[in-house]
């Protein structure tokens, strides 16, 4: 039930994880998400994996990464091996597992939707497989009255009866009401927590669901970490990414986590269609979200109606999305992410993403992207250039450049020159 801890996960945890085991360890500064991004990128260029940092030639690797992070600092982080095993033992004793993006068991929805934004480390409890099932996300405020809680429990029940997984954030108010409704009706529930996973894993109310494989809880933050507004905001993306559709029960107007998360989806990320509860009591925030493009919640009364509503909205969204979705790799990363912009081990090249679950869409994107690269290089490589120079020209990693150059050589657009190895656009 607990997936094993892989060497890559060990290394990523050592570099970025606070490894909270009682009193916090002496102050060695963890790599920030941004630093780790850059570090991972260099590692990849060196054709190394994070796990190589645990091997004998670590000093050489750290020297090569000196321009990103001071080697002594990385060394100090890597020296926390015993602390790591202690922390992991604490988690395992509480049935909490930890995986990294480098693991095959990492949730595919997160990887394909969040891409380089997906959290490098994921802590969790319960059956990982639940995270692959999509479902209905329900979000809303922490402070709501009893009638709205009752309404939200009803939504949870409806999802359970329709056999849909319910995804929410585990916070007080709307989150917990929706999860409770689904759980009591025997449905599957995924909780994406922003704090205190360790406590939730031992809460008696969660025990049955965890044991029966109907509840999974995940968090990108250390299981012992307490509440933090920034974490709560960041976590919203994961909720949307795991769902097929989302319902905003209630949102403040232009403030609060629910608002920010929903607007980010509507304006930018578009992971799934978003419904908003309407009606006289729905409030200013909900109305504003509908004006920004969310759909009014059709208040389905049966499982069939719920499924139909979600299927309709999903098909319209996919069409919409893949027109706006480009480019994939060259887009600047979003701010404040917890995730490296480039996954360390799993290739982020277009060809790999094409294997993910939205295969068709990505494959199209990859073609469009390659076409763009081709037109750039047909002029850019009028004079021969090395892989390094092309990488610098396009501001992407060398392995990525090699993938593209390989394809363009194969299609006969570009030719290879020897000693030193250079590439040149063929005259048409």
């Amino acid at each position, binding site marked *: *039930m*607990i997936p094993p*801890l892989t*060497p890559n996960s*060990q*290394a990523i945890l*050592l570099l970025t994880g606070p*490894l909270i*085991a*009682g*009193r*916090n*360890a*002496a102050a*060695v500064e963890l790599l920030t998400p941004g630093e780790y991004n850059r570090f991972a990128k260099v590692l990849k260029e060196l054709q190394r994996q994070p796990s190589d*940092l*645990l*091997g*004998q030639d*670590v000093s050489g690797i750290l020297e090569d990464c000196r321009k990103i992070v001071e080697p002594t600092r990385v060394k*100090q982080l*890597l*020296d*926390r*091996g*015993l*602390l*790591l*095993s*202690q922390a*992991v*033992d*604490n988690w*395992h*004793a*509480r*049935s909490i597992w930890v995986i990294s993006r480098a693991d095959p068991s990492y949730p595919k929805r997160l990887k394909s939707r969040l891409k380089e934004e997906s959290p490098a480390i994921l802590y969790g*409890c*319960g059956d990982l497989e639940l995270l692959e099932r999509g479902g209905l996300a329900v979000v809303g405020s922490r402070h709501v009255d009893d009638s709205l809680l009752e309404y939200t429990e009803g939504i949870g029940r409806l999802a359970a009866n329709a056999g849909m997984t319910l995804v929410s954030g585990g916070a007080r108010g709307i989150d917990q009401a929706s999860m409770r409704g689904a759980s009591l009706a025997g449905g599957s529930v995924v909780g994406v927590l922003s704090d205190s996973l360790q406590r939730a*894993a*031992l809460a*008696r109310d*969660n*025990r049955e669901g*965890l*044991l029966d494989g109907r509840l999974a809880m995940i968090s990108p933050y250390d299981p012992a970490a307490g509440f933090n507004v920034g974490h709560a905001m960041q976590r919203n993306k994961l909720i949307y990414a795991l769902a097929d559709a989302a319902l905003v029960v209630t949102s403040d107007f232009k403030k609060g986590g629910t608002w920010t998360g929903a607007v980010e989806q509507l304006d930018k990320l578009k992971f799934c269609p978003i419904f908003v509860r309407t009606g006289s009591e729905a409030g200013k925030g909900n109305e504003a979200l509908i004006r920004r493009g969310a759909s009014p919640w059709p208040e389905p009364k049966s499982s069939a109606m719920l499924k139909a509503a979600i299927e309709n909205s999903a098909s319209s969204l996919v069409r919409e999305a893949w027109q706006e979705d480009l480019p994939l790799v060259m887009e600047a990363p979003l701010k404040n992410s917890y995730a490296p912009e480039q996954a360390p081990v799993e290739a982020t090249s277009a060809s790999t993403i094409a294997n993910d679950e939205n295969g068709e869409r990505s494959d199209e994107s990859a073609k469009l992207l390659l076409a763009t690269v081709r037109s750039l290089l047909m002029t850019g490589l009028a004079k021969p250039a090395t892989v390094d120079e092309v990488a610098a020209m396009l501001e992407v990693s060398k392995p990525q450049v090699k993938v593209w150059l390989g394809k363009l050589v194969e299609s006969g657009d570009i030719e290879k020159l020897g000693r030193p190895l250079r590439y040149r656009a063929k005259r048409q």
Partner: protein
Amino acid sequence: MPYNPTRALELLRIGTQNQTAFFREGQEDAIRHVVEGKGRLLVVQKTGWGKSFVYFIATKLLREQGGGPALLVSPLLALMRNQIAAAQRMGVRAVTINSENRDDWQDAESMLSQDVVDILLISPERLANEHFRAQVLPQMGARISLVVIDEAHCISDWGHDFRPHYRLIERIVRTLPQNVKLLGTTATANRRVLDDLKAVLGSDLTISRGELARPSLFLQTIRLPGQAERLAWLAETLTTLPGNGIIYTLTVRDAAQVAGWLKSRGHNVEAYTGDTGERRVELENSLLGNSVKALVATTALGMGFDKPDLAFVIHFQTPGSAVAYYQQVGRAGRALSSAYGVVLSGIEETRINDYFIESAFPSRKEVEEVLRALHSEPSGLSVPQLMARANVSYGRINKTLQLLSLETPSPIVKQDTKWVLTAANLAETFWERAERLTALRREEQKQMQAYVALEAGHMEFLVKALDGEPGAYQPPDLPPLPTTARPASVREAVAFLRRTSLPLEPRKQWPTGGLPQFAVKGYIAEEHRAEPGRVLCIWGDAGWGETVRLGKYTQGYFPDELVSACATLVQGWNPKPAPAWVTAVPSTRHPRLVPDFARRLAAALQIPFQQVLEKSDDRPEQKTMANGIKQALNIDGALAVAPGTTIPPGPVLLVDDMVDSRWTLTVAAWMLRSHGSGLVYPLALASTAHT
């Protein structure tokens, strides 16, 4: 890190205080392996080979090059003083944190935080300790560069003395990143143990293995069924045996008794057990310095004790396995050309070894009761709370909690002071392992009986049992020891056993939660407590134990020889002020048995007998209650002063037949004293308490 051979040899010579010392075969390779970080290493070498030099020198070399400190996990740190002294000579700053040096913890912790410690030595139990995990490890765990697991065979399920907390080490090692260096050491590992260790420490584990046979040992086995015969044999043999040695017993009680007997025969011996506490160092030093002839010890005197000129190791009872025996007897004759290793085999050893085997794991019923109790309380239960809810003894509750919490995934976990259920059920593999290990222990027990039956070829047998290289060994030229004891000595030993009584300490506190029907809780006021008392014998032992058992369950009458034995005991004990009258603990099941005995004892002591207490409620027998709190609650409200009785004011001798948790005697004493009696001296015929 680079290995510096000159510096390594220099350290060895400082450590051994021998300017011409050289490394033994394999020692230097092992140090080099660790320092150069060539992967995980297991060193299998017999005790005395110098495994500690490997890790101390490696630690020193790593530290001199700026590496982090080392962590050493060993089951018996108290016995590592010799090695630590050698380490200090080499300039290795070693600090120990264990349950016995609580006063030094704060100093140790501050030294750790200042990075002035080169190696921290802890017991495996420390790793499970909340304070240690929360306060000490996070700090130092951030720098440890080398983890040393001493007695690594304990990790293996197949190891002869599998220790529960080594499962914790196993869990930690499994998640330990490869960049932390890891060294395991053991003296004994057969093939199954090695396979297990490879599974835990990694298949790329390098193994450095030495020779098993100990040519200086003269091994002998002698069957002497009765305890008295063996006591007599020991008393006779010690007079002629040259040199100094160890006599091993299976239980703490036996160690005390054997030592008591030998002292009464004029031998200079001391008992050394887990209960010895602070005198351990002093006793070890007296053996090292040959100022005692022998220590009579349990396995508490074991791993790590190094006396090169130890001349004999005698077992008073057959140990449970060949591997355990090899380890213990292997302490003899390390630097002598010849030494004795003798196993005496007695009738009670099977019962004791059976008890060890059967109590190694909790029963399904115990596990069910504990889990059910925890399930009924979502916020968790402390151990005393569990004792009030589950009919399982204190020791068994702790054992159950410990083993369950060391499972992966663990069905329970300790949050602060309370145990709570986790989101994992107990896997069936737990029971499979328990069954497999129990079967293995039985096999080992059988193997040792085969060893006892040997006429010759003892060393060959042991080497084969340990999967060593087979070969023929020529034992040293020593005369065999006699195989019987003189009848006169045996009679004296019987008399000794019969006049040995045990102390009975009074309880000073009511159970957690008090006794609601009697409306008492907290401390028992001094004027309501019993005085220190006495127990005539141990249930079923070779002195009076058998007579008491027959009296209670076969004859329904305690014979006069027990009366005179108790009268002699009281006269020898001579409590002051002397008891002025005698009374008995009442029973509804055997209403006459104890009062009748007490009346005859009173007559023998020439003081009056008066029955003043009665059972006011019929309850199940105390022996069906599994723990002290349950027994206390079982007596709550069930005892009363008989109506219309006046309690005499003088000191009283309070008599009962059996004593286990002491709650009945505690309540009876409280009742007598609060109704006006003088001091209460409890006296019981037999103790059924497990020690």
